[in-house]
């Protein structure tokens, strides 16, 4: 069946099977093909695709244990983040790290070692994983943690499913008093100002900025930064006190069909970006205000299948991180290149990362990360190759969970611990890797 990632590019005909119980895994491995685990397909490119066998983990969605004393949750890898939120927010718990959508699985969060708006303070999701169970090529299940199979543990955090099938994960939730975030918007009129805002907001748990990708010259890097922190019960305004830990509302907006990608042109993107900027200014004047976590962390989840807005050919996301010292110059060069190309990006997102974690292939490193969305068009490839060059020149790397087109050598250069990763992977699965994806083939991993 035709499968793709969230970007709907590339689409590949894959043999799809569903794992319902771990006892069935040896039988599937017995077929002798290579395979890759797939969560909810929210990675953008080709990471969760394998024509020979793609193993859906969505039916492995049982919760196994929760310790209300410590916040330690043990669940199967196919449990959606949204389920965890619906179950535990009303009880006063929140995941330590969440990506920009709640429609991911726990397995996908581990395999991509996802970061949130709090990376500068809290690191990646992997940092909160106490242990996981991993099924290897021979069908045996190993418990991996910092003390048991430690190398395999470090390779699996951010390992993009290439070390085996994650069956279950034990990780720590963090207590919250309310479901509301005190959020504040701040406007920056250029990149220097923006980075100064990030530095000044280090003590805020969450921070993220939207960047106007069409602004150039003196206004290059202008945008709106949002910072926030969970509210305590005592600070909640009276109108919210009746149900301080309310979960996300149900119901979604629909994008009816594929929107012609011609709608996304210089003019519409220009208007959109200008509107965002104006709205940001208005919000900045309004000052800090309580926002429900669902709107703060997952604004796009209210719109079903918004990826269709990018038209039939799909979209690619370009996300890179540059080391701290190179960020000011490097991010400016990236934005300049995008603005010059005229292929504006609807969503330009800037985040500040703290130090790299333990995952051998984890994406974050200390510095700034920029993420951009582009509809797939004839000139897109050339533009992205150009961006790669800038990223490389400044010692940065791209995020594999978003990638669909990067060249193997760029990834080798960007991930210095790749050799260590490959060694662990070879040891775990022998000379011929059993766990492989379109991404690993493309990148010769």
């Amino acid at each position, binding site marked *: 069946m035709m499968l793709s990632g969230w970007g709907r590019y590339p689409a590949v005909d894959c043999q799809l099977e*569903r794992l*319902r119980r771990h006892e069935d895994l040896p039988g599937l491995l017995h077929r002798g093909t290579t395979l890759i685990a797939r969560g909810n397909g929210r990675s953008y490119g080709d990471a969760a695709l394998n024509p020979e066998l793609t193993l859906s983990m969505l039916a492995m969605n*049982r*919760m*196994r*244990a*929760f310790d209300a004393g410590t916040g330690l949750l043990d669940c199967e890898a196919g449990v959606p983040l949204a*389920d965890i939120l619906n*179950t535990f927010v009303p009880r006063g718990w929140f995941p330590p790290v969440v990506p920009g959508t709640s429609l991911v699985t726990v397995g996908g969060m581990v395999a991509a070692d996802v970061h949130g708006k709090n990376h500068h303070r809290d690191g990646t999701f992997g940092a909160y994983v106490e242990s996981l169970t991993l099924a290897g090529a021979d069908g045996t299940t190993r418990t991996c943690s910092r003390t048991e199979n430690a190398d395999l543990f470090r390779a699996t955090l951010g390992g993009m499913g290439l070390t085996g099938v994650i069956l279950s994960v034990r990780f720590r939730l963090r207590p919250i008093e309310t479901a509301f975030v005190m959020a504040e918007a701040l406007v920056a009129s250029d990149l220097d100002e923006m980075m100064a805002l990030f530095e000044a907001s280090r003590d805020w748990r969450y921070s993220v900025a939207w960047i106007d990708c069409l602004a150039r010259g003196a206004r290059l890097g202008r945008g709106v930064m949002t910072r926030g922190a969970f509210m305590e019960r005592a600070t909640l305004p009276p109108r919210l006190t009746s149900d301080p830990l309310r979960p996300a509302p149900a119901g979604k907006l629909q994008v009816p069909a594929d929107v012609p990608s011609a709608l996304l042109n210089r003019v519409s993107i220009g208007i959109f970006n200008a509107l965002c900027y104006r709205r940001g200014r208005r919000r900045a004047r309004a000052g800090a205000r309580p926002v429900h976590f669902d709107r703060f962390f997952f604004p796009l989840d209210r719109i079903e299948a918004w990826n269709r807005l990018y038209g039939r050919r799909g979209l690619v996301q370009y996300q890179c991180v540059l080391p701290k010292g190179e960020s000011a110059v490097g991010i400016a060069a990236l934005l300049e290149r995008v603005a010059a190309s005229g292929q504006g990006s609807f969503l330009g997102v800037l985040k500040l990362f703290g130090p790299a974690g333990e995952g051998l292939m984890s994406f974050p490193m200390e510095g700034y990360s920029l993420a951009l969305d582009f509809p797939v068009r004839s000139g897109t490839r050339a533009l992205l190759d150009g961006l790669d060059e800038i990223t490389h020149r400044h010692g940065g790397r791209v995020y594999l969970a978003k990638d669909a087109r990067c060249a193997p050598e760029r990834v080798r250069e960007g991930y210095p611990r790749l050799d260590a990763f490959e060694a662990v992977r070879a040891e775990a699965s022998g000379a011929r890797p059993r766990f492989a994806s379109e991404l690993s083939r493309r990148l010769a991993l």
Partner: protein
Amino acid sequence: MNERIETALVIGATSDIGRAIAHTLAEDSRTLQLAARDAARLQREMQDHRVRTEVAVTAYRCDVLDEDGGVSLLDALDPLPDVAVCVVGLLGDQTESRRDGTAAEQVMRTNYVGPALLMGALAERFEQRGSGVLVGVSSVAGERGRTSNYVYGSAKAGFTAFLSGLRGRMATSGVHVVTVKPGFVYTRMTDGMDLPGRLTATPEEVATAVVAAIRRRRDVIYVRRLWRPIMFVLRAVPERLFKRMSRL
């Protein structure tokens, strides 16, 4: 209408449809009773409910092919449930069923004999109490014997007829019987089959329909609904013609 169900029992709770029904029932029941033949896997389902919800869950081992036809389950149930849903079934392999009498018998017993005896025994106890809802998951395959799966289909036909008769008998006793006829559902049973999207439901859809049918005291439901008119037409096709439609 939407009052809480005190106690709900799901037999076949380790199936995809059974799991979905149990989760939907857990949202507004006080106690959930799960029954299945594999104790270890049942334990995992029970644990899942315990972590997610406040509902009280108990597990019971039940194999409908056991000597006593699962009647020991009834004695174990504490309390007697207000709603009991039986999801047990086996598609089997038609070719194998044709060649091997034991295989055919297992399909017949799993879809008809076992579930019917169990539902019948439950009905007796519900009748004594004077209340309760029984739900049997049968199939559209029981509407007419088709070349491709008539062993399974005939057993489902038996189960459907049994439920229909039981419903009639219980009509004056305060006990209600619901027959559920799914068309295609994406589950372990149909893995690898090429199913038509418009006619194929998810287990969650079946679960929502089942709980709505319990609340509204419906007699027979089709999931998806489109199957009702389709089966209406299919039943009307004369046998002379139907026998040539062998590919169905």
